[in-house]
């Protein structure tokens, strides 16, 4: 009885995705219609300059935003887990949690308005003509990612056995040495998971990017969204197949890394 519910739920989640990927190999021009096995839509995708350009831009934005998010979110998670009470802690916690709960349209519009006001100020004060595009999208995505990384890192720090760091300090390690040789390796899985989370969030976002981007900053999701508004094309099937293959590869890699680290941590604990 319980198994049936689980199987039906998983089938509901997976069937559309698997069909989408399967029909990417169909020769037919109409999506979800079988016209014999063919790789023509993958070839069409590989020849689609706009799509490739947007994908390359999105990958660079996602990598940059995820890296910034891990640096800042790691610090934020550390502050939340280790700094105890300080003046402004409530405000800090609320701001770090806000991107998790704000509706996308609110985040997007408010960040755009910030960038517009800053652009106006820069022009009035220095005569600078700042545009919007990849940089503004990167700043917005780093902010979203920061919030997610902070949660993951805070949870990992809270779950650490304090005896490990105390032992290192008792044996004469300086605070930074303790951090570098004990704490950092222990929270590394959280940093990897946080980076991946921030990276996929950025690659998946269409709403915030649409608000804060400019004419030169069309990301892959923005392009796919504009096409889906008209309808599904087999090229998008092929794109989904590629994304799924890459995501599977990346997750498999992460599982291997995290699995190895997790076992190491379990042995240490």
């Amino acid at each position, binding site marked *: 009885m319980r*198994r049936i519910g689980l199987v039906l*739920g998983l089938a509901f*989640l997976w069937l559309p995705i698997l*069909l989408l990927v399967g029909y990417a190999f169909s020769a037919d021009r109409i999506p*979800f219609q079988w016209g014999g096995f063919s790789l023509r839509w993958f070839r069409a995708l590989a020849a689609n300059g706009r799509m490739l350009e947007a994908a390359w831009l999105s990958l660079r934005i996602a990598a940059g935003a995820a890296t910034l998010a891990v640096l800042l979110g790691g610090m*934020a998670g550390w502050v939340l887990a280790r700094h105890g009470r300080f003046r402004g802690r409530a405000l800090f916690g609320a701001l770090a949690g806000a991107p998790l*709960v704000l509706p996308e349209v609110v985040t997007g519009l408010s960040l755009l308005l910030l960038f517009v006001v800053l652009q106006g100020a820069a022009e009035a004060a220095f005569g600078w003509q700042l545009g919007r595009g990849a940089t503004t999208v990167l700043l917005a995505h780093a902010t979203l990612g920061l919030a997610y990384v902070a949660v993951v890192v805070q949870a990992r720090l809270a779950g650490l056995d304090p005896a490990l760091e105390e032992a290192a300090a008792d044996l004469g390690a300086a605070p930074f040495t303790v951090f570098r040789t004990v704490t950092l390796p222990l929270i590394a899985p959280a940093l990897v998971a946080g980076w991946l989370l921030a990276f996929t969030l950025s690659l998946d976002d269409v709403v915030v990017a649409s608000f804060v981007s400019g004419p030169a900053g069309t990301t892959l999701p923005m392009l796919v969204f504009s096409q889906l508004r008209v309808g599904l094309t087999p090229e998008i099937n092929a794109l989904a197949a590629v994304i799924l293959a890459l995501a599977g590869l990346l997750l498999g890699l992460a599982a291997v890394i995290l699995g190895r680290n997790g076992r190491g941590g379990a042995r240490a604990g």
Partner: protein
Amino acid sequence: MRRFLVLLPPFAWLLALVAAPVAILAGIALSQGAPGVPPFLPPVSLAAGWQGTLENILTLVQDGYYAGSFLRSLVVAGVSAALCLGLAYPVALGIAAAREGWRVPLLAMVLLPFWTGFLPRLGAWIGLLRDGGWVNGVLTGLGVTAGPLPLLYSDAAMYLGMVHAYLPFAVLPLTATLLRRDLAVEEAAADLGASPWVVFRTVTLPLSLPGAAAAFLLVFIPAAGEFVIPELLGPPEALLVGRVLWAEFFQNRDWPLAAALAVALLVLLIAPIRLFQRLDEGGSRRGASPPSRVGGTAADGRRPGVLR
């Protein structure tokens, strides 16, 4: 000093890119529209002093078009969250009842669709639901319907997309709560002669309510401002706040009104957000408590860790 160096970068970033934007949003909600770039007059300026207006806020309250969009959004978010919860219960119960080695792979199966991209999944529904699509083909083939039903661009398609996108959000907290529960209570009820359904209704369900509430809110909050799903799958008349805001901003270039809509959406969501945060804190505190207080067996202590 070292503490300060760790605190300063994220705090400065959050003040600049979270606090300041929301403050500016509130300011522009009070400003007047004006032709030009950007298309509004700042509410306060050195030359003119106060030149703001409450007109945008009043428009939202008085014009039925905007009030209606808020009402529709709350209904759609509520129905979507309830549907997700209904589907999440059997899935979460199945995962919680699975053998220990199976739980993480099963949870991964629920979460993995996240990594396949949000837009491709909506694309799949567009392909499946269109007139000559798979779903209609199956229905006609089975003789359920005589011809294709107009499935795409309907409320049903929109809810299907919502549930498909947000179901993992609902499964996660529910599974966490169900794994944390003390199985001895259910066994006691069964030993005393309660049928499986009675055990579920009188023991499991009440015990899982905090997780269910968190699951509901985790879907409700983002669904209330959702733009992409109703735009791609819903009927044109499904004018939810997210779509109305988008249209005011991108099509009508009425930035002050779009900002006022965003502020109103935020105000409406404050209560659910606060409630969710309180449930979340309670949940993690329970999860952090020693196993002896949570349950009886040694395995209980490891269960919350399964989800981290």
